[in-house]
């Protein structure tokens, strides 16, 4: 954990220097006329990540998991004379340094990895990018009201998923180098060493930022809750009433990882694509038979929250599938707040646990039966 101190005017040249070794991605204003919105993307030579940004409407997940990605190309043989042809998409990307990522968004990358690097399946595209990637975080000192990242076990200054953490002060970016990968990047960019003062200032800023955060939701009762109790229909239809089943929450979510596979063929040339998908749509769960287990709107809504707050923690044992970035709350056109949903689910779970305790039933484990 080595302190670093970069004067703001030295940051642009440092990035130019880093670009000699790394491809650099970072937050940049999306359009000149849309100052309030920044997007994460790979930068061209001469561009610098804009660390003065406050928030991005979309998470940086597309850097690891693009919205549309070519998996391979193929030729459809005509006339049955030629053999089918298949060519894997070659991976030519340079090691990518993501500069200015929020610490909780970086934590979300680790959650995505659970899905793309499983025992049974290792996704070559995702993993290659992920292993090469350097994560240079920017502490969030302009937290939105909707951010509840500390309640989700991460936070505005969380270093667990970062290689370097930076924080913005009046005239400099101060921070700390966390990993060997971070050390290499700091060397390539020529980041200047900081002092013990910087370390102290960073700790003070962390405490100050976290103390300003509003209390987050409580989901303590969800882990031991009965899956089928939480799944019950009545309250979900009520909670889901306003949901229009668009994909603004899932597409802006840093931890939503679902995708669809499509073949696009023009003449004899084909390409297989992997595309973001969203469980909010009817098509997502439509079976080839025509049957759809989630025909009603509220069932799709229920699935999203049950997956994030119950199925995922039960399966991986690593907490909920949410880093509390608050984008789904900010982006929801009908004012649905995941904190409210967590609150309702937790209250239901706590109520059920209390009732079970009073009746001294205990022992029956419907969740285990349902899962088996």
């Amino acid at each position, binding site marked *: 954990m080595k302190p670093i101190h970069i004067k703001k005017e030295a940051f642009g040249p440092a990035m130019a220097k880093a670009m000699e070794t790394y491809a650099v991605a970072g937050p940049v204003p*999306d359009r000149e006329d*849309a100052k*309030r*919105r920044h*997007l994460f993307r790979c930068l061209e030579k001469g561009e610098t990540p804009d660390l003065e940004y406050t928030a991005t*409407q*979309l998470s940086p997940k597309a850097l690891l998991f693009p*919205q*549309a990605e070519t998996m391979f190309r193929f030729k459809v043989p005509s006339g049955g004379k030629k053999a089918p042809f298949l060519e894997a998409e070659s991976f030519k990307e340079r090691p990518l340094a993501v500069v200015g990522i929020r610490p909780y968004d970086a934590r979300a990358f680790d959650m995505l990895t659970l899905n793309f690097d499983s025992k049974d399946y290792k996704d070559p595209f995702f993993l290659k990018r992920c292993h090469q990637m350097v994560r240079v975080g920017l502490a969030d000192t302009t937290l*939105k*009201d*909707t951010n509840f990242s500390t309640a989700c076990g991460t936070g505005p200054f969380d270093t667990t998923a970062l290689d370097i953490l930076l924080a913005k002060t009046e005239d400099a970016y101060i921070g700390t180098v966390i990993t060997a990968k971070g050390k290499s990047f700091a060397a390539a960019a020529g980041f200047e060493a900081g002092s013990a003062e910087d370390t102290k200032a960073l700790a003070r800023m962390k405490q100050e930022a976290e103390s300003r955060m509003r209390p987050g939701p409580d989901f303590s009762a969800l882990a031991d809750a009965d899956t089928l109790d939480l799944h019950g229909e009545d309250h979900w239809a009520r909670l889901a*009433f*306003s949901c*229009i*089943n*668009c*994909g*603004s929450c*899932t*597409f*802006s979510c840093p931890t939503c990882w679902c995708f*669809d596979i*499509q073949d*696009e063929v023009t003449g004899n040339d084909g390409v297989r*694509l992997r*595309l*973001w998908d*969203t469980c909010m*749509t*009817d*098509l997502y769960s*439509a079976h080839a038979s025509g049957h759809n287990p989630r025909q*009603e709107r509220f069932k799709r809504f229920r699935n999203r929250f049950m997956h994030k707050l119950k199925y995922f923690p039960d399966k991986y044992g690593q907490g909920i599938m949410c880093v509390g970035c608050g984008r789904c*709350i900010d*982006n*929801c*056109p*009908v*004012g*649905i*707040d995941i*904190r*409210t949903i967590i609150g309702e689910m937790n209250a239901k779970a706590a109520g059920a646990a209390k009732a079970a305790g009073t009746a001294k039933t205990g022992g029956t484990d419907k969740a285990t039966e349902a899962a088996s």
Partner: protein
Amino acid sequence: MELNDTLRDIAKKLLEEGRVDAVLGFRQSSLAHMTEPFLATTAEQADQLVFNSCCRMNLAVYLTPDLFRSGRPESGKKSPRVAVTAKGCDSRNIVTQIQENRYKRDQVHIIGLPCTGMADKAKLLAAAPEGIDTITEKNGTLILSRDGKETVVSKTEVLQSNCLSCIIRNPVIRDEMAGDPVPELDMDSHPDRFADVAEIEALSPADKAGFFETLVSDCTRCYACRNACPLCYCPVCFVDESRPQWVGKTIAPTDVMAFHLLRAFHDAGRCTDCGACEAACPMDIPMRAFTRKTIKDAREGFGWETGMDLNLRPPLDRFDLKDPGDFIR
């Protein structure tokens, strides 16, 4: 009496007297600048109903066959009756849905809301970058409070752009009003009404293509615009058809443009410019640039203004020798 009190009293009375099975309206969301569409089925729930400058969604979206099926079973009625709170634009969409045989006029009880426009979410947040705890409305101003500090903005300055060219602020059909009707803006024949469209029409074909491509370049195809739209009620949208699949699912310009253009044409003669699509868009895409053109064309080609009269048939399902459009002669 405050409009919200009147609104709640009306809703409670309707529910208590059993004249309706549910009241569809808005309630305050967890964020000060947001409201949430809400279905009150008891007098107690009716106390949550609100109407303010943040009721951007169009409630006609929720008047679905499912809603008319899902009334209280104990009421013993075959088809439940639903009361709906409606702004001017919402009411025009209700007219359109009735014309399109979605439901019958007597299935909905319309509680009219006099509307002075909706506050643009982005403009509100820009006016109060520190955040907003509460919003109070008073004499054409919005008071945005944060930790005791107040920012006062004029409502006109933060209005959604569609509200600035609104032609009907009071509901065209209603069973009762929750407040006194507000004066109309007389924008329907205003020379500047379609100035925005004329500006795009004046571009060369190549510039026009470039304009629209830039316009939708941030689209993630989340379909919030479509799902917030009371016109988009097809059982399966053309972009979701999979057998056969008509449109690619990528975010390449061709696929994105196919979605937006086809949707706009599908809304021709049906769009009321309620602005729900733009209010719903998480990427702030001004996609009304597409639908505004269809509104202008419907007016110029067919003398048609959407959803103004239950007794008229829409321009695309009737033949009229007196259509003003010379192009069909």
